[in-house]
């Protein structure tokens, strides 16, 4: 496998990951701290026969992504929280219509314009719930430049496999961090291509949707010379035809959630450190992972039994892995650049009397290992549940 070692920032590695995964269409609207993704995509895409288009806003960007995807391209966009706010309308369309796409959110401090160039992790719930109606979502979050490459590839694969928009929740720290990374061409079996109808499915028999299980139907592109296809944001039946009757609304709503929640084991990725003997665990995602690693190294050097669980998949929450930690350690510390968005989710699984404490920082600066250690110490002494 040909790998090329480079010293680049996370935003650039994301573009490399997208191209390696087969993405050939980008539509977006520039916004800090994600703009390098747009700029580098504009440079790279036409070199591989792909297209870059800068739309008039994030609403149209998301719409164009879905259009390109329906016509057969792997498509992506990059933005930050304010842009995600605008993309939510057509994110919902992508979920209901089951159209693969990848949305990269390089999180910054908010709400609104906030501190536009400062890191934050405040979009976790926006990613989960930012579209009206019941739905589930897949979101991955990188904690290193290497993961920017690797998880972007995973994001495209999951988008194709589950026929749904997928988030990559990066942040300013990781997006602008430069570090050593291996960029490589992927082997064919590392790339998920869009499922096409089986040979024996005739044009008359083909249905663009299915609701009898937890996996989506095949998706031939518009322009296929064999199949006509139909997508719609209206509640529809297997033919893609509008069908707003109670039993259909019921099954479609359940299906859209089930296809993600019931496939959580396949979708959820985590990384663990020293969890075998840990008495305290840090459960982390995104940039705070780096701070927690620093804290863990310091504490391990002092002989403290500290371990870590990094959530590479943040939606759906890796419940099994989180429960395993909660049931085996005395204290869990959740460091985040928000006021406790992941911590609240982790507490939902805490049926084990584990002490779950938060280490939060929302001043636009990456949380430090020292702050995490301080929170841990307080919890050890007299922390509350």
């Amino acid at each position, binding site marked *: 496998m040909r790998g090329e070692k480079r*010293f680049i920032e996370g935003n650039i590695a994301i573009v490399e990951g997208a191209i390696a995964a087969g993405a050939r269409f980008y539509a977006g609207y520039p916004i800090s701290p994600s703009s390098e993704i747009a700029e580098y995509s504009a440079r790279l895409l036409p070199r591989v026969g792909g297209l870059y288009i800068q739309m008039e806003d994030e609403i149209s960007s998301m719409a164009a992504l879905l259009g390109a995807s329906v016509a057969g391209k792997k498509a992506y966009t990059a933005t930050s929280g304010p842009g995600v706010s605008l993309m939510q309308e057509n994110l919902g369309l992508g979920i209901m219509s089951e159209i693969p796409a990848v949305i990269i959110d390089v999180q910054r401090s908010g709400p609104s314009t906030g501190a536009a160039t400062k890191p934050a992790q405040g979009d976790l719930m926006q990613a989960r719930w930012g579209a009206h109606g019941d739905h589930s979502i897949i979101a991955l979050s990188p904690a290193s430049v290497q993961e920017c490459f690797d998880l972007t590839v995973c994001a495209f694969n999951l988008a194709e496999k589950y026929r749904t928009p997928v988030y990559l929740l990066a942040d300013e*720290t990781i997006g602008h*961090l*430069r*570090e050593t990374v291996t960029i490589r061409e992927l082997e064919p079996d590392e790339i998920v291509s869009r499922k096409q109808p089986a040979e024996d499915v005739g044009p008359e028999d083909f249905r663009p949707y299915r609701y009898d299980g937890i996996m989506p139907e095949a998706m031939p592109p518009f322009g296929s010379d064999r199949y006509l296809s139909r997508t719609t944001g209206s509640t529809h039946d297997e033919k893609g035809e509008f069908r707003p009757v109670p039993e259909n609304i019921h099954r479609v709503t359940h299906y859209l959630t089930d296809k993600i929640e019931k496939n959580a084991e396949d979708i959820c990725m985590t990384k663990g450190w020293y969890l075998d003997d840990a008495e305290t665990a840090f459960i982390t995602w995104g940039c705070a992972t780096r*701070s927690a690693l620093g804290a863990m190294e310091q504490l391990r050097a002092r002989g403290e039994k500290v371990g870590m669980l990094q959530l590479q998949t943040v939606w759906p929450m890796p419940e099994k892995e989180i429960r395993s930690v909660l049931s085996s350690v005395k204290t869990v510390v959740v460091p985040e650049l928000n006021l406790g968005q992941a911590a609240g989710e982790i507490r939902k699984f805490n049926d084990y009397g584990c002490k779950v404490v938060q280490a939060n920082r929302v001043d636009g600066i990456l949380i430090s290992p020292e702050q995490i250690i301080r929170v841990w110490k307080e919890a050890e002494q007299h922390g509350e549940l």
Partner: protein
Amino acid sequence: MKMQIVLSGVGGQGLVSTGEMIGEAASIHENVYATLAASYGSETRGTFTKSEVIVSDEPISYPNVDEPDIILCLAQVAYDRYIDTFHDKTMVFYDTELVRPSESARGVHVGYPFKQMGIEMGNAAVANTIALGVIAKRTNILKRSSLEASVSEYFAAKPKVIGINLQALNAGFSLD
């Protein structure tokens, strides 16, 4: 080995570039780990800026530098901001015409008129590369050949400035 480096000054002095050259030399030519966290703001010229670089033979966790082992200060505002973090062993490199060091400051101070030397060499913009040469020579963090390679690669798209930057790097290495 883990070296924490801060490159500080004001926007437009090429400090991110210097950080990238260190990072590339370390990660690509010396096969060790490196991170670079640069400060981002809407102002890119004339206001305080810093690049935090870590070079280590082990994977790097927390990428920010709170207490540098090595610091380059190309502006008074930068020096003043970091002075309290200096230890006795901190290597403090500064531009003698842009920074007035404090007499009470800790650390090993090494000063040269980097900007003026750049101007005499024909381009003030290479002051940072001269400083890089001095830093590498005094601290042995990276081999000269690695830096020469990373400088050449960094400016590959602008072949005209490779020469003067290599000259600047070597000028830095030749300073006592």
